[in-house]
């Protein structure tokens, strides 16, 4: 059992502990230094909550006997906050083409569903079905939902988590709107934790980053991520040595986070959520005006030119002994 626990990632890996614990002291320092500001910000939040609206989709009805993957194999079985056996998950996976479409097409449907429908918001950690019902979540929520749907449809899925540095538009939109967040980020030079998912298709792990809706990407001037697009180097720069591959989230992952976003820094969290929501509205206008495909093609071209690729050719004078 211990092995299974460890495999599933229930026990927090040392690297993750280091990443999160290493980041917390500077946050606490920042919060302690500005108690009045934080209090005011939390009070204001109570009066002025941010409304992200109802989800734009209906969750399909679960019908007894819908097929789903019952395997206890690694990356297919349920893990903490990622339950592929939940009825709503099974129903949605079936609706998105599980066991009917080829693997890639099914995975793409899952990816697009999560990406287009789940809005990024800094809510407390909870289950994949909570995310689905609410229609909002952090990147980690969205990864759990993505992984649960893939697993329900019989595709292996896992998490890839790391600390990162952000590109300028994201920094302005997410970090700078909150002085607390800004001090924290600036002290660390990076953001504590982000993740992408990976889904196993045709013998390969394919990266999936459903974090941003197309509207938000348009507002930030980013290409519209597709299944297989890695955000590394596009909008984020992972910190060396922080990348971890996990089957599941560890227990306790949400404790500090929930305390932070639901209580200690609720006001700041709402500022960031609001800022992101405003951006999504602007992004919608951009996409309506240009058309999604046209927008993506133009931005993608710009990004691809940005970091040139170098092919490693053999150099005769380099001698390896």
């Amino acid at each position, binding site marked *: 059992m211990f092995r299974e626990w460890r495999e599933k990632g229930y026990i927090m890996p040392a690297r993750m502990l280091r990443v999160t614990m290493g980041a917390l002291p500077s946050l606490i320092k920042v919060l302690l230094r500005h108690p009045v500001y934080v209090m005011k910000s939390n009070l204001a939040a109570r009066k002025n909550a941010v409304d992200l609206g109802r989800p734009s989709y209906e969750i399909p009805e679960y019908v007894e006997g819908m097929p789903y993957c019952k395997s206890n194999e690694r990356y297919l079985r349920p893990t903490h906050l990622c339950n592929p056996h939940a009825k709503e998950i099974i129903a949605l996976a079936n609706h998105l083409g599980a066991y009917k479409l080829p693997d890639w097409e099914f995975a793409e449907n899952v990816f697009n569903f999560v990406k287009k429908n789940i809005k990024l918001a800094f809510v407390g950690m909870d289950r994949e079905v909570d995310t689905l019902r609410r229609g909002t979540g952090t990147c980690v929520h969205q990864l759990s939902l993505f992984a649960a749907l893939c697993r329900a449809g019989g595709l292996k899925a896992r998490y890839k988590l790391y600390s*990162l*540095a*952000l*590109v*300028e*538009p*994201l*920094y*302005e939109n997410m*970090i*700078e709107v909150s002085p607390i967040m800004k*001090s924290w980020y*600036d*002290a*660390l*030079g*990076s953001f504590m934790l982000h993740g992408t998912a990976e889904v196993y298709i045709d013998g390969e792990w394919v990266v999936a980053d459903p974090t941003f809706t197309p509207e938000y990407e348009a507002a930030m*001037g980013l290409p519209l991520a597709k299944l297989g697009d890695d955000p590394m*180097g596009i909008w984020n*720069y*992972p*910190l*060396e*040595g922080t990348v971890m591959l996990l089957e599941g989230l560890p227990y306790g992952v949400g404790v500090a986070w929930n305390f932070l976003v639901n209580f200690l820094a609720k006001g700041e969290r709402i500022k960031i959520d609001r800022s992101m929501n405003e951006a999504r509205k602007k992004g919608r206008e951009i996409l309506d005006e240009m058309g999604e495909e046209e927008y993506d093609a133009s931005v993608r071209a710009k990004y691809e*030119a*940005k*970091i*040139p690729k*170098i*092919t*490693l*050719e*053999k*150099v005769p*004078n*380099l*001698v*390896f*002994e």
Partner: protein
Amino acid sequence: MPVENVKETLDEILHDYIPSSISTPSEKALYEPDTFYGLPQKKADEYRYGAIKYAFRHHYENNRFYREVCRENGVTPDDIRSIDDFSRIPLITHKFFKDYPSGRDFAVWLANLMSTEVPKVVIKGKNPSFDDVIDAFAEAGVVVAFSSGTTGKFTFIPRDAWTYKMGQYAIGRSAIEMLKHWYEPDASGFLLFPNPKKTNIYVGKVTNVMYDLVKDVQVAIDREITTQILRISMGVTFNFKEKMMSKMIKAASKKMNEDMVKRMVNWIDEMYKKGERILFAGAPFILNMALDRLEEEGKSYDFGERGAVLTGGGWKIHEDKRLPVEVFRERVGKILGIPPENCLDLYAMVESNGFLVHCPEGHYFHIPQNYFHVRVIDDDGEDVAYGEEGRFAFLDGIAMSYPGFISTGDKVKIHERCPACGREGPVLEPEVERIKGEEIRGCAEEMRRIIMEE
């Protein structure tokens, strides 16, 4: 007495950095002019056009990777017919130089980056570290300088002997030209950076020429700094062993810093009593530590025009505190008696061989226009108008071993000409910032973390 003719004096002192025959347009642009900052615009344009056009053709013809970039952008050397065409030369993002593989592939990557012939480099071991590879290249005469940001990613730039020497000559000429009212070769220097003989960290390596420029050099940070030590100092550790190393480095720092401050304070005292001309060169916050100490002890000096301070690397002194440049100059004036016109900042980075130096009159950054072309661009890569802010990018006419056409992560403001002095050509505002969201980088930040105690 300060020297009459900077070029004449330095050409004698720096003869090792000058090739026996000056033949290429890049060499001519660097070694011929009497001044780097005072050329008439037309003359500066002529030199710069020649150097950069030559460099562009050189990289196009000798660097497969850069030629591919040019092809994608549909540009060939024949398209560059005047300085106005410089905006067509494809820029490489500074991020590219952070995108390196590890192990043996790192060596292959470096070699593929180079536009000059790779000498025979022997690399031992199946999985060499960055430091192993850097040492192997050094053995073959290639200086692989590095710098690190807060994500622990390095920037690596390979300089062959030719490029390295030109860069050294350039920083010598640049610094002394703006300090010529102070300069005498028999001055003494205190380097507020790591010992260039013991590291390939760029801030260290680039100041090697100081040993030629003044008669005697003290060094603030006299320890070996490898990529591993730098990364650990930046707070990025990979395993328990490194975590322990980090603790040990931090623990040792306290004593070393105390020792460093003492040495600086004693040196100042000794130099003052002897009536020496002195130069502090390096990270401002390190000199600031000595100033703090002197202030605590209630001491002050009056070096007057005998003293000079040449800073570089950025102005962060604490995690969230910047030292305003003007405040620093005031302190230097108050405690050391060194006038503001002898207290200048130099803007440089690992990717370039262009050194922008404050003019003594107004502390604006002047560009060595004879071989270095600065562009300040917006998000679409278009040049911004004068008076506007944008991303600092440059075309380096003397980078031979790698394509020095690079856009950086720094934010600068450009003016058509200096509001304070008569030198021709555009200048940058006295302070440079990072573009928001770009990882924090800067040589002073590296230094700060290297000697951080906590």
